[in-house]
Structure formats: C-alpha cells, structure tokens
C-alpha cells in the first residue's frame, strides 16, 4: 500500500507519521506543500504541527496551499485522506469536513493521554478493529470541535462521528472531555467516510515501552483494510 504525507512549512509530526506508516508496512512518500501533483497513493495524510505558523486561524493558510487542491480532488474522487491534529484543522478549512476546531475550553495547550471510543466502524479506517476503545495521545491548543446544530444533526444522522472522548471503560461524559468539544467529538468523517479528521495522534502510540501500543492497532488494521 502506498501512502503520502504532506509537509507544510511548520508541520512537525510529519516524521513521526512517516515512521509509523513505514513501521506497519506502508510504502510512504513525503510531498512538499508547493508541489502540484500527488504521487499515486492509497492514503494521503495531513500531519500535525503548526502549518505556516498557524498565526491566523489554525490550518487556514494550509487549506489554500498549492498542493491542497490536488488533495481535495483526490478526496472527492473517493480517495482516503486522513488528517491528524493540525491535519484535522486543515481538513475543516478545506470544507472536506464540516465544523471548526476552536481553542480548548481551558484556553491552554493540552498534552496527555486520552481514551477514545470508536463510534462507527463501517468504514475503511476502523472496520474489523480489535479494540473499540483506544488510548491515544493528544497535544493541541485548538481541539475543541464545534459545529452548528444543523451540521451536528446532519453528521449524526449520517453517522459521521468517528470517535468520541471517553473514560477507559467507554463512558462518555463531560469529565472525560479534555477540550470542550461538542458531544465529546474527537474525530469525524465526511459523508462518504473516506476522509477522516481526528485530534488524537495514533502515530505517537506505536511502542509499548514508550507511550503504548493502541496506535499500532489502528495502523495495522488500516493497512489490512486497504489491501
């Protein structure tokens, strides 16, 4: 399986994502933001970081960058596009995903382990995944997902909520909502479920001696689903 990770100036999880994809068997390629064409890929990843410094609204400049129109075309033709953290923010800026990511409710950057519950596994990202609750890492200042009531109804009706913050037993409540996200939303899909945006970083949980291995479960499963 071939994957591509886009590097924007200010991306800083691009290497981590490259390492993770390769570790689980993807043939990965790095793509520069100023390129026009995407290499042939089964999966495009927008990594975490601070694209173009994020001095404007997070992800807004990346959402207008040169490579992004090819990413949008790729997604619209059904290609798999995943955005993690800043990648998620960028995807909402392109309009591929609805809603926005606001500043965390406590107004601070938050870096810690969280649990997320997979809400919909009828898609290539989570189908057959062997655990329904994953322990992953978050590290962001703007992860507070928000959308209008109409948008919320539409993503709920269409089963577009990918994952929600919960406790280790899967209980979803305010106490386990790290950033104030509406309905504890940690990640969402587009309508066709080929585009996924999520705040937690699976690429940081791929070694049991480091933070943990739930990211390994995610990547192994993803590769199998794409085969």
């Amino acid at each position, binding site marked *: 399986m071939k994957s591509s990770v886009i590097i924007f*100036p*200010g991306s*800083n*999880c691009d*290497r*981590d994502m490259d*390492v*993770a994809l390769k570790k689980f068997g993807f043939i990965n390629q790095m793509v520069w933001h100023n390129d026009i064409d995407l290499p042939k890929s089964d999966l495009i990843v927008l990594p*975490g*970081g*601070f694209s*173009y*410094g*994020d*001095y404007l609204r997070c992800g807004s400049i990346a959402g207008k960058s040169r490579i992004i129109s090819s990413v949008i075309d790729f997604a619209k033709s059904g290609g798999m596009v995943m955005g993690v953290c800043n990648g998620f923010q960028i995807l909402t800026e392109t309009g591929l995903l609805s809603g926005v990511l606001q500043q965390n409710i406590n107004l*601070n*950057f*938050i*870096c*810690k382990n969280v649990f997320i519950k997979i809400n919909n596994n009828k898609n290539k990202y989570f189908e057959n995944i062997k655990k329904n609750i994953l322990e992953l*890492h978050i*590290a962001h*200042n703007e992860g507070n997902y928000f959308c209008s009531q109409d948008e919320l109804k539409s993503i709920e009706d269409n089963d577009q909520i990918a994952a929600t913050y919960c406790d280790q037993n899967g209980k979803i409540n305010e106490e386990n909502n790290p950033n104030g996200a509406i309905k504890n939303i940690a990640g969402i899909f587009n309508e066709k479920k080929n585009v996924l945006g999520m705040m937690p*970083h699976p*690429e*940081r949980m*791929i070694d049991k*001696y*480091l*933070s943990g291995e739930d990211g390994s479960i995610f990547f192994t499963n993803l590769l199998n689903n794409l085969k």
Partner: protein
Amino acid sequence: MEVNLQNAMDHGLNKEEFNKICDLLKRTPNLTELGIFSAMWNEHCSYKSSKVHLKKLNTKGKKVIQGPGENAGIIDIEDDDAIVFKIESHNHPSFIEPYQGAATGVGGIMRDVFTMGARPIANLNSIHFGSTQNPKTKNLLRGVVKGIGGYGNCMGIPTIAGQTNFDESYNGNILVNAMTLGLVNKNKIFYSKAVGVNKPVIYVGSKTGRDGIHGASMASAVFDDKIEEKKPTVQVGDPFTEKLLLEACLELMAGKSIISIQDMGAAGLTSSSIEMASKGNLGIELNLNKVPCREEKMTPYEIMLSESQERMLIILENGKEEEAKKIFDKWNLDFAVIGKTTDTKKIELFFDKIRVAQIPINILAENAPIYDRKFKKTKLPQKIKFNKDDLKNFKITEVLKKILSSPNISSKEWIWEQYDQTVMGDTVEKPGSDSGIVRIHGSSKAVATSVDSSAIYCYAHPLTGGKQVVCENWRNLISCGSKPIAITNCLNFGNPEKEENMGEFVECVEGINEASKFLDYPVVSGNVSFYNETKDKGIKPTPTIGGVGLVTDYKKIITMDLKNINNLILVVGKTEGHIEQSIFARNILNEKKGPPPEINLFNEKNNGETILKLINEKLIKSTHDVSLGGIITAVSKMAIKGEKGFKLIKPKVLTSKFHYYFGEDQGRYIIEIEPNNLSKVQKILKENSVHYDEIGIVTKNEVILDKEPILHIDDLTKSNKTWLIDYMSK
C-alpha cells in the same frame, strides 16, 4: 558623533572602562562603536566577574568532545552519536514580559544547539517564582509556562523534564532557565571559528528589527522602579520562523559549503560577527546596507545592537552562495551576503558607503575587562536543637499531607500538560519522573536528563549547596538506570559587586567543581546570570545543574512508580536524621536556620554506583532518590505514581520518627525489590559497604505508618495533585 563619559555610563560602562576603550582605540569611539563595546563588555557577554572562577571548573573527561567556550557542550554517546547540550538563563526579560521572555529563552537555547549541526531532541526548564502570596506570581507563572510551551510546541521538540520552585527571594526577579539537548553525528559538528580570508559572510533567517536593543546590557543590571520602560529591550519570538531556520540550516549542513556558523543571540550581529572573527584570528567587514531590515531607516547602531530572533550568521566556501540561497529560498527565509572575512583583524562596518566603525577585534574580545571581585565566605551555620516536646503535637500523616501539597513538592501536572512531551515519537519518560528520557531515534539507546537546583541549601551554605545540587542531579540520572556523563550549569546569582553575593557565587562554583571532579561528571557548557536583584534585594544563590546520562537499552530503564503488592521497600544510604533546612523544619516548624545536609562524596559515588549494579542485575523494580521531604515524601511519590499503598515501620535507630522520615540526609535512594531477591540485594549492598534499612512493603492502597490512623493512597494523591490546579484557578 564622538561620545562622552555620560554616554558611556548610559550604556552601562563605568569610567575606568570608558577610559580603557579610549586608550585602546587611541581615540574616542563614535556612538556605533560605543554600542559595540557596551554589547561586548557587559557582564552577560563578557563574563567579566565570573571568568576567573569559571576557569577552575572541571571540564575534561573521556566522553567530552567539546567543553565550554562554544555555542554548547558536546559529549560522545558511542556509535558516532554525540549529544550537544546547554542551559541558558532568560531571567531579566521573563520578569519584564513573561511570555516573550520565556519563549525567546527557549528559542535561543535551541539555536545554540542546532547551530552546531544537531537536531534538538529534548527541552527542559528550571523556573523559579516568588512567593505564592505575591500578587505577581500567578501571572508570571502563567505567562512563562505559555511562553515555553508556545515556542517548544511549535518547534516540535518535546519538553521532557523540569522543575518549578517558589521562594520569596524571587519576588522581584524570577528565573527562567532553558535547556536543550540535540543529536549530532560526531563527525559532522559545526563550529563558530572562521577560517580563510575573503570568504562570504552570509546573513540568514528573520529580518532585523528594533526589538531587543540593549537586551544583553539590560540583563547585566539590577532592576529598579522603572522596569516598565525596559519592555523594548525584550525580544519577540517567532517559533515558526525558527522551525524553518532549523530545517534550512540542517539541509545546508548536510552538504559541504559551510565553513562556520554562529547564531545571533545576545548582542545580535555584534557578538556573532566578532566571535567568529576572533576565534579564527581574522578580520571581518560588513556592509550594513545589505542586512535585511524589518523597519525603515534603521541606523548602523540599531542594526548592530538589535536582538531580533531567529537569525544566523554563516561563513561559506567561495562560490557556494547560489547553492545555499536555493535552500533558504525554498524555506522562504532571508538570505543576504553582507560582508567578507579579511586579514585586518578588525571589524569594519560600512553604511551608505561610509566606514562607520573600525575596531581591532582583540580589543573587544581578549582585552575585555576581567574582574577578580572581592568576596565574603559563608560560615557553616550552627546546628539547631529541636525540642522534643514541640514535635509531640504533630502527626506524621498530617505533616505528610501538608508537605505533599506544599508549593514546591506538589505535582506540577498543570504545567507539563501545556508542553508537548511526546512529539518526535521517542519520549520514554515524561516530566514528573526522576529524569526525562528520550530514545536516540532508530536505536535502542536513550539519553536521560534532569535539571536541578537547591537554592535553600546554597543560601544556608554555598559550598555545601554547590556540591549538593551536582549530587542530586547525578542521583536523578542514576535512579532511572542511566550512566551520568556530563553537566551544564546555569549560575543565577545576585549583584557580583556585593561581597556577599560574589562570595555565594565563588563558593557555589567551588562546590560544583568539587563534586564534579569526584563524580567524574565534567561541566561542558553553561551560562552565568548576575544582577538578579531588585531594589537592593537579591535572589538566593541558585546554581542550576542540567545533567545528561546514557541508557544503553531504553527497554530496561527503571521508573519510580511502585509496581507490586508485597514487594519490599528499602532505603539505601545512611539516615542520620538531618532536619535543618528541610521542608519539615522550614515549612512545618518554621525554623529557617541551621546548616544544610552534609555531602559525603565518597558515599554519594559508592551508593550511586551500587544502585546501578543492582539495576544491571535486574534486582530493582522501582527506585527514586530521596530529596526534599525525606524518606516518607519519596515513598509517597512512588506510591502515588504507581497507584499503590505502603506500610512503613521505622527501624530501631536513635533518631525520632520525624527526623527519620523527614530528614534530608543526602546520598539516599528508595528501592522496591521482590521478597525473594532480598538476600541477593543484601549481599551486593554489603559487599559494597552500603548502608541500608528495610523499612516496609508495598500494599494495595492503604498507607500504614506505625501506630497512626490508616490512610488511603487517594488521600495523598489528592493532596499532591490539587494544590497547583486550585492555586491557578483562584
């Protein structure tokens, strides 16, 4: 324009220094030249009060590739890998403008590391604030933490360890010490020494603005009432540009076009250009019209003294300009050829085709003033007799809860959570452990690192305090199973023109040196920050030590959390019950006099090396060094982290239970072992003549202390974890 003595004094130079300048130049300098002298001769850049004493430091060792004198120190960690590291202060600017001050402190130290060709892999910080009752403390803390996070997080470098202290002596002068570790191939290290005449001098990075002018001079003076006026001397950080600069520099460094490279830190273009030329015994000629400026009509004086951030000066091989420019164009950074190296041994500046400054380099560098200032030694204070009746009214469990929730012991989770600790995917141990640990990318090796200071002990007796802080740092690295290699120091002191303050400096340095020699733990880099004084009130002497140790296999590290019920708990090292200057004496008994705990370097080394033996024999399940708050605080922290309880029984020793549990004797560790390994552990400890006490066992969740009421570990956890959150939310 010729200048006079008053101008010189406005620049922080005294009469003798101004006369010396005129004598050396054989004329009166112009304003630009005066600015250059003031930038090079201030305390921050010239080390004029500290040099005499720093020279004595132990800086050599088998693993040392580069000692003090370069942008950062470098140590060998085998297989061609080397670690570049240094700690630096950004105290004065952080007090004036906490967010930008702290942010640019972090940015500056990272530049020092990547200018040597290393990719930064870990950040640490040591931050000190005034009393928690001081109305300024909360905002300063909030601003500093946001600044450190704002810069480090955006750069994508994990912050993996640190310490936070509160003490009223920092009410008017907070301390922000930032440390960075970088990884470099030992055959691809870059230095600042210029080589060769007529080589192009290149300016890269951000444009030059009017921010930070006189920053280094500001950091070389005490504060008064007019501190608000100093805001323009604080630099403004742009971590995004620094991230681009990092990537562009590393890309250029992969080729062979760079002769030397130096970041523009304190005193900006002035000190970087002079340092490069001075080290190469060359001259340098700059055309200031070529310097990329952010603002209009900047004068030569402003251009030379600006401390705008995210800039580098590079000397290239001839003919490599186009190739290099392409890289900086790709990263959208300024790139300008602004001058060349010469054989004149002078710095010559041109602006609008006129020569605006001309100074022989040796005058600025080697002839800078050096002071062997007068100093006063501190006598070892008398021991204090504590009345046994006074102690009767205390309950160990109640005191323990108070200590666990005291500002300096309480959990600092509120702070760490604002730092990205895991970006780069190599973090093995995060903040809140004895040491932070990062894996060397793609290998099984890792480096452990810790930053420590003990101002209370240093204030009570500087010589002992200096030794203690090195030992404590060493212990923190030992505890996780790493072999300590070398240290960097950040020496934060008051006004060196006062004999007491100078004495504190001299004796702390002496103590550091003694411990460093005995432990074979050389100093490879560092920084001095004097004049941490406001309206005549100086800080407690605060040398901060940052250490680095090598872990050969990251899968085998030892952590501090208690692991299994019924395992045994031992104290390794002798407990005499030294209570003076302990948290117990100071916070609970309100007794602030007396000597700090004694340091026995032989025991320190022997105990530490024996712990490493036990770890290598796989006999230890968890370990933690005993420091502030004594044995019981150490065990409690292990229990809180491991979500277990413990049962302790004081051994039949002469000291009272308060002395035993809360005493802060040095050179001690708590270890958790499996019951069936006891005899093996005892054998090794005895063979190495290391004293130990068996004091208890790990329980499920009950905290049982002699005859006191039983607690649940959650009670202690709550005491420990809520203080800072509550304080910041009030």
